[in-house]
Structure formats: C-alpha cells, structure tokens
C-alpha cells in the first residue's frame, strides 16, 4: 500500500486503461521508501500545475507491477522508484531512483510540454 495522495494503480488492466485514456501519463512505481517518497512528493506538488498530465503511483512489490518491471526501457534499472512517462500509450522516458523536481519537470516539459500558465522570471 502506498500512502500518497496520488491516484493509485493496482492492476495491469488499470495501468492499460490509464495510458489509453490519457495522452500524457507519469507513473511512479516504488515503495514507501527514502528514494521513492521524494518523487511521490514532487508529483503531488506539481499535479495542479501540470493539468495536461495524469499522475499515478503503483506499488513496486505488487505482482501486477510486472508490466512496469518488464518494460525494455527499465532493463538495467537497479534503483527504485521506476518512473515511467507515457505519451499516447507509449513509453517516452523512464528514470530510476530518486529525482529532483527540476529533473522531473525537465522531462515533463520536454515530453509533454510546459504548463500553459507557467510563469518564468
């Protein structure tokens, strides 16, 4: 069980539906652990800003998460969380281990586009 405020994915079928129903999806697949919690926190904090992206989590040790653990894009990953970015149902980016907000938003901006109301100094 992941104690986050993100939408949870519990089955492979739910993941399939999430990525087919939404153009831009970010899924953080991890545990309630030190490398994962900061990434969930970043997703929670930017969720309102990135309205064109759907954010989900999935428990790494859930047998159904095999659909993420077996992706070719995560071959060689040896650190959780596995964070997968899907565009139109296809994986466009995957990262391993803890990330900073800057690293996450750089990927989101590149793959899905910056939020329309994004302010810059």
């Amino acid at each position: 069980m992941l104690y986050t405020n993100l939408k949870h994915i519990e089955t492979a079928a739910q993941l399939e539906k999430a990525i087919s129903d939404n153009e831009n999806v970010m899924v953080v697949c991890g545990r309630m652990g030190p490398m994962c919690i900061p990434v969930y926190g970043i997703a929670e904090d930017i969720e309102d800003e990135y309205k064109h992206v759907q954010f989900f989590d999935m428990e790494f040790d859930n047998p159904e998460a095999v659909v993420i653990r077996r992706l070719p894009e995560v071959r060689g990953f040896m650190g959780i969380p596995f964070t997968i970015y899907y565009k139109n149902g296809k994986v466009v980016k995957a990262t391993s281990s803890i990330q900073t907000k800057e690293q996450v938003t750089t990927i989101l901006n590149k793959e899905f586009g910056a939020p329309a109301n994004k302010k810059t100094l």
Partner: protein
Amino acid sequence: MNEVQQYDAIVVGGGPAGLTAGIYLSRARVKTLILNEGTLGGQMILTHEIANYPGVESINGFQLANIMKKQAKSFGCDLLANINIASMSLGDDIKTITLSDGKSFSAPAVILSPGGRPRTLGVPGEGKFKGRGISYCATCDGDFFTDKEIVVVGGGNSALEEAVSLTKYASKVTIVHQFDHFQAFEHAIEEAKKHPKISFIMESTISAFHGENGLESVDILNLKTNAVTPFKTDGVFIFIGYVANTENLKGMVALNDWGEIVVNSDLETNLPGVFAAGDCIAKRYRQVTTAVGEGTVAALAASNYLHRRKQSHS
C-alpha cells in the same frame, strides 16, 4: 509584479531543524513560513527506522516528518515544499526571498536550515550509473543485488552498518575506504570485520565507473601508490557523508572551508536577524535529535531578536 508576502520569520529548509523552528515560532505566535526546496522532512525521510529519538521507541523517518509537519501546521505555520529559491537578500533589516515562480516573501528574521545531501564521489560514470548499479540507499535497492558481488564505499557508521545489512542479499561485499582505519563506532567495525562475506580494500577510492547499460566494473585507485586496478562488480553503494546545501549562500553569510554556515552558541550567523540550524552548520554530530535541538535554539533566539527589534522600533 507580484506582491511581497510579509512574515515575522522565514525558515529556509523543512528538515527536523526547520520544522522544529516552525513549531516553536508559530506556537509563540510568530507569523512563520517554511520554504523547502524538496519534500518536507529532509534527510530524516531517508531513514527507515529511527530508534534513538527519545520518547519514541521506534519510528519511520517519513512518519516522524509527517508528525512534525502536522504540528507546525496546527500552530499556524505556513509551509511551501518543492519550491525553487531564485534569490535571497539577507543583509538588510527586512530580508526578502524570491522564488523562481516570481513569488516573494519578506521577514525581519530568517532561519537557514537547508540541510545537507549525500556526498558523491564526483568521478567519471557516477551520474550515468546512478540507479543502474550505483546506489546511496541499501534498504531501498539492496534486493536488486541478490547473489551479486558489490562494493561499499566509506568508513563511517553508515558504510559499515549498511555493508553488514547488504550481506542479506549480496554474495560478497568489498568495503573500499580512503584511510587505513575506520571512523565508525567500535561495535560497527567489529561486526563488519568478523563477517565472512565482507572484505576490505583500505587507503583506496573509486576513480571511475565502467559498463554498458549497467555497471560492470570500477577503477580502484590506491591512494598511497597511485596504482589503478580494475575491479569487477555488479553494484556500488556510496556512504561517504554529507555536504551542506549552502551553494546559494556563498558570499551572503559566513561559511567555513567545507561550506558549512558559521554560527555562535545562539545559532546566530554573522548577519543580524539571520540564524542557522541543522546539517548546514559547522558542527560535529549530525543526528535528528541534534537538528531538533538546534531548531529549538534558533527559534528561541529568533523570537528574542524579534522582541528586541520591536522594542527598539517602538
């Protein structure tokens, strides 16, 4: 132009020191804001079990952080996490902090508690193999290395204790340490030394990481002879201490040679109205309990400063 939001005190950093300062200040009816560049809780949330926090037998670091956060909020403290600080002006009577989204906050008192982050080796390949063979957390990533041969870098308590815990998974653990002796407590050294799966390479460090998709080998540099030896390994866990997150404070407050903020016993920096607490300050022991104590002292000293300032302005 955005309006500047006024506070009595701004705490930069939301680890145990910053959250404690927020609790004390808000409870004293000081209008307080905590600004945190990452997830609230700091290094504390990277700890699976805290068993030496007095009054609590054992608690997960994330849970303890959440309790502190709830406490601070309940006293009226405002909290902003995962923000980016674009600029700080700390030299004047009223200090101003501006975020990268343009929001600005000002206050006569500031407590700096930006914490620290795990030190990296900073050698070729380290960035490439992070999460692909290089890890900084045994509890998180240990099971990826089941029946594999791994290296642990470091010689303090974390390195030796995590090396022993990694023997649950790894078939062999080699500890690489830069000195000829360890800095850990005696019991940790003894436990590592007597473990049949652990061996040691002393007075050495890793000078490069190699591999294709994942880590395959490292170069081990003997610091005495300068000889470099290739060493096959499936993974490397790095536990070589922490560095203070004070890069954006250079030239603003007094820092020592290690980038730590220099403070007096009241945790005042060289700037009036600017205090510091937690892993960012020059000190010997870095524990949740010491951070909490410093958060308390900094908050009380800041309250006192605000009181004196108010009297002198009236």
